[in-house]
């Protein structure tokens, strides 16, 4: 056993040594992760508020009004209430899986935030495979949903989970194919590089088809109406999270809204020029674009009925994927001819 440190500079030295071995990047990542957790929470609360308010105004009513100014504190109150609510586990459920499922859904979301460039410099880890990282981690989401549905010991949950898996598998492909068209134009998977490539024209001009496919498929990927069949509150009560109460349910909610932010951010990066824009700082431009896309998704939710399961599948395999493939081939052809 070594004696206790007597050197007054021990901790400073230790810090330096540790930094030398681990590198400052870890600290940046840690701080970034904490900031992300804060941002994810605030963002989700703001989105819930925004969603209900927008829905309310579409539906000719003011929505929440009484808790705080224009109901401003309502999401906070909801969150606090859910935090202190009983966590029920149904009899017959697989306890372990039931408890970890909300975490499995929520954690990949945090990771995906690491590479999102909020502005040219404001990005936790500016890595070369940013796009790939987001896609691979958001694909993990579906594992959590499957676990949640299976562990609940509830047939509604199980049907919801099954639907979710097949839906996610079907819609990953058009997302990847449409994003690939952009990647082919920029030769990079780095999100910042993709944004830099859009210094003159946004890619939505070059790639309108890919943009539409991406928007539709990512709406389906985040399980939102008209593609919310895993939840389908008219049919499956609440789908895969029927049996979850309190904070576990809140985690699903947080994940849903954060996912919405992520796909909107990807859309902004790939097609709307990310943080690019005149006068205002990059961060403001980025958030403006992201929330614009989110707004479109929210309005779609409160306007359309829900599609049926088999129609949803047909739509992906027979319409979106062929069109995305065609778009990809066409893009390749143009690049070959022009460049």
């Amino acid at each position, binding site marked *: 056993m070594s004696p206790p440190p007597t050197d007054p500079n021990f901790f400073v030295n230790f810090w330096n040594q540790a930094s030398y071995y681990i590198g400052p990047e870890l600290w940046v990542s840690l701080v970034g992760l904490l900031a992300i957790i804060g941002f994810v929470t605030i963002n989700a609360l703001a989105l819930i508020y925004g969603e209900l308010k927008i829905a309310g105004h579409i539906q000719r*009513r003011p929505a929440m009004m009484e808790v*705080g100014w224009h109901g401003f504190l309502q999401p906070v109150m909801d969150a606090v209430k859910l935090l*202190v609510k009983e966590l*029920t586990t149904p009899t017959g459920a697989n306890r372990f899986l039931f408890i970890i499922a909300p975490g499995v859904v929520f954690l990949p979301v945090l990771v995906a935030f690491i590479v999102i460039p909020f502005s040219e410099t404001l990005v936790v880890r500016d890595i070369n495979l940013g796009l790939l990282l987001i896609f691979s981690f958001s694909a993990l989401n579906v594992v959590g949903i499957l676990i949640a549905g299976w562990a609940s010991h509830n047939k509604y949950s199980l049907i919801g989970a099954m639907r979710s898996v097949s839906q996610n598998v079907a819609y990953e492909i058009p997302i990847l194919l449409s994003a690939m068209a952009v990647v082919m134009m920029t030769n990079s998977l780095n999100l910042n590089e993709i944004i830099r490539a859009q210094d003159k024209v946004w890619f939505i001009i070059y790639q309108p088809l890919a943009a539409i496919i991406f928007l539709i498929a990512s709406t389906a990927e985040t399980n939102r109406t008209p593609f919310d069949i895993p939840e389908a509150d008219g049919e499956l009560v609440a789908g895969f999270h029927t049996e*979850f109460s309190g904070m576990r349910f809140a985690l699903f909610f947080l994940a849903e809204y954060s996912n919405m932010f992520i796909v909107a951010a990807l859309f902004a990066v790939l097609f709307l020029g990310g943080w690019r824009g005149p006068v205002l700082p990059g961060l403001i431009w980025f958030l403006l674009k992201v929330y614009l896309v989110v707004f479109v998704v929210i309005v779609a939710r409160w306007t359309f009925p829900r599609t049926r399961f088999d129609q949803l599948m047909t739509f992906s395999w027979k319409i979106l994927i062929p069109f995305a493939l065609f778009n990809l081939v066409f893009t390749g052809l143009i690049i070959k001819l022009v460049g």
Partner: protein
Amino acid sequence: MTSDEKLVRSVEPVVRLAVLEDILSVPRASSLMVMVFGLACCAMELMAAGAAKFDYMRFGGVPRGTPRQSDLMIVAGTISRKMAPAVITLWEQMAAPKWVIAMGNCAISGGPFAYDGQYAIVNGADEIIPVDVYIPGCPPRPEGVIQGFLTLQDKITGGQKNNVLRRFDRVGGQKRGFLQRIKRIS
């Protein structure tokens, strides 16, 4: 132990932290998720209370389809003998803390359907589950539903004056500003 005592014991928390509970009662009161659960005629007025003109969502009531995620069960209508076990199961499936509003005369006492020789209904929701607020009427008007909703909020916070966040005065029906709310507490 009678069934009533058993019931009360299952609801009461083991340790009660007075101040914390008082603080937490405000979010609990301001965010009541209502279970989508209609039995009979009153369900219509419950829907009306949730729709554009009356809109209990203003006070934080959000409809949820599953009992696990709801805080408030509004028993809107007659409970038949056949339905009673399902109502009890639903109540048991809700996560604590939970509240029940008996809406309409049927849910209060059997209402017009309670008579000598009745073979099909349970005379009131409080025969099978604990009820917090009763809203009379056949059916109650949406205004009545909202009044009952606010009464329940006040019950949760222990009086209207403790409900510091709500900006609506239940008794006077007036908006109150922040300063007025503070004054009411002090």
